[in-house]
């Protein structure tokens, strides 16, 4: 029974210090914001002026795709980020991993919600209903529930430091389970529905659709990275204020 914690000096340890982390990554914040904005300007220009679809109706529904697909991608990418951060918390006990995990959860929920929302906006003209119990959509819905559950869990803990390791365990359990959920939902909906509305392999995309899609895809990914970094900084500040308040409470008792 002996526990040892000897600090090692490396860049890894240096960003483990919240102050250093803010100082280091603070410089990245503005370039990231500008890059995101530029990507969005280019992407939206491509979407509105280069993308096919002259008749307003078809063009509008097609344009939802440029938002829908990046968000659908992000909804899974963010969970990946959370799972990696959870490993960072559990295995390396890296303090910034906690913060990253906490900051990612609401963003993941937001992007998943957007994917569902844009998807159902699209479903209306495509299938005549907002919602279809299709495998892909259903598993995205379940993913949203998992995100929101994690957000609720973060809020239920008074002590955020203690919360991190516990939530990391849960995040990893979820990461193992998500493929199983996906598989079981597919099995369930194909079993009941003769043919899926969504074709498994989409039509070959013409380049004038693919290019704006790719640009929007990067735009949204960088949007996430920017927001994530910003949220991490906010969380670090919040924790600093809370620690100061608690220290005041203890210092003042005579």
């Amino acid at each position, binding site marked *: 029974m002996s526990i040892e914690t000897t600090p090692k000096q490396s860049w890894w340890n240096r960003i483990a210090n919240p102050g250093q982390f803010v100082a280091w990554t603070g410089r990245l914040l503005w370039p990231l914001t500008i890059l995101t904005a530029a990507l969005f300007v280019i992407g939206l220009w491509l979407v509105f002026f280069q993308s096919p679809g002259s008749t307003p109706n078809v063009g509008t529904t097609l344009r939802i795709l440029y938002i829908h697909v990046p968000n659908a991608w992000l909804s899974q990418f963010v969970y990946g980020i959370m799972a990696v951060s959870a490993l960072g918390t559990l295995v390396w006990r890296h303090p910034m991993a906690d913060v990253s995990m906490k900051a990612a959860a609401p963003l993941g929920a937001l992007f998943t919600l957007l994917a569902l929302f844009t998807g159902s906006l699209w479903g209306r003209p495509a299938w005549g209903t907002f919602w279809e119990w299709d495998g892909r959509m259903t598993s995205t819905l379940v993913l949203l529930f998992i995100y929101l559950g994690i957000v609720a869990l973060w809020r239920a803990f*008074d002590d955020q430091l203690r919360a991190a390791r516990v939530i990391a365990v849960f995040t990893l359990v979820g990461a193992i389970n998500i493929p199983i959920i996906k598989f079981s939902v597919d099995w369930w909906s194909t079993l009941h529905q003769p043919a899926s509305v969504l074709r498994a392999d989409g039509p070959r995309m013409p380049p004038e659709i693919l290019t704006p899609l790719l640009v929007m895809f990067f735009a949204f990914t960088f949007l996430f990275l920017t927001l994530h970094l910003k949220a991490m900084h906010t969380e670090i500040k919040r924790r600093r204020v809370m620690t100061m*308040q*608690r220290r*005041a*409470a*203890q210092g*003042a*008792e*005579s």
Partner: protein
Amino acid sequence: MTERQVYPELTLRATAFSCGRGGMVLADALSFAVTGGNCLLLRGPNGTGKSTLLLTLAGIVAPMSGHFALEGADADDGPHLHYCGHRNAIKARLSVLENLQLWATLNGATGITPSEALETVGLGDLSMLDAGYLSAGQSRRLALARLLVSERPLWLLDEPTAALDTEGHALVTRLIDGHLQRGGLVIAATHDDITLPHPNRVQTLTLVRKS
């Protein structure tokens, strides 16, 4: 703290009074009378029924037999007592001041203002802090501040000095003494010594284990 008599002449009188828990008599055939300006200390080993007696006087637990009354009080103008028990009834996620303000409104803001009360108990500079982060001693002080924001003649205190340091003991003594000066009554259960400036104002009732 004002030192003048603010309450009418009051007497808490119990006659052939017994209380208990779960059908079991703990304190039997008690008779005592406490008049305004006096303090009754309850003493005795663990489990002899001190807390139960206080809860009975507060009207939370029904007496087993006999009766007690606060003579001289007008039953129409609301409750006449403050009970301060083992648990501090403090809500985390509200600030210290918000916690106290709630009780000032619910019990009637007839005493000093909440911020003055916090000053008095030594929590003045913590009034904006989330009350969930208070230490045990600070929580106890907040519970005591509640006695000051609403004027009520009878104080029932269960281990008021629990979790308090020496300075806190002096605070409790000061608060009790001030209340007695104003003509109030105090009944306190305690294992610690409480030494008031006027020893003749203190009566002691020792409960014994029944077996």
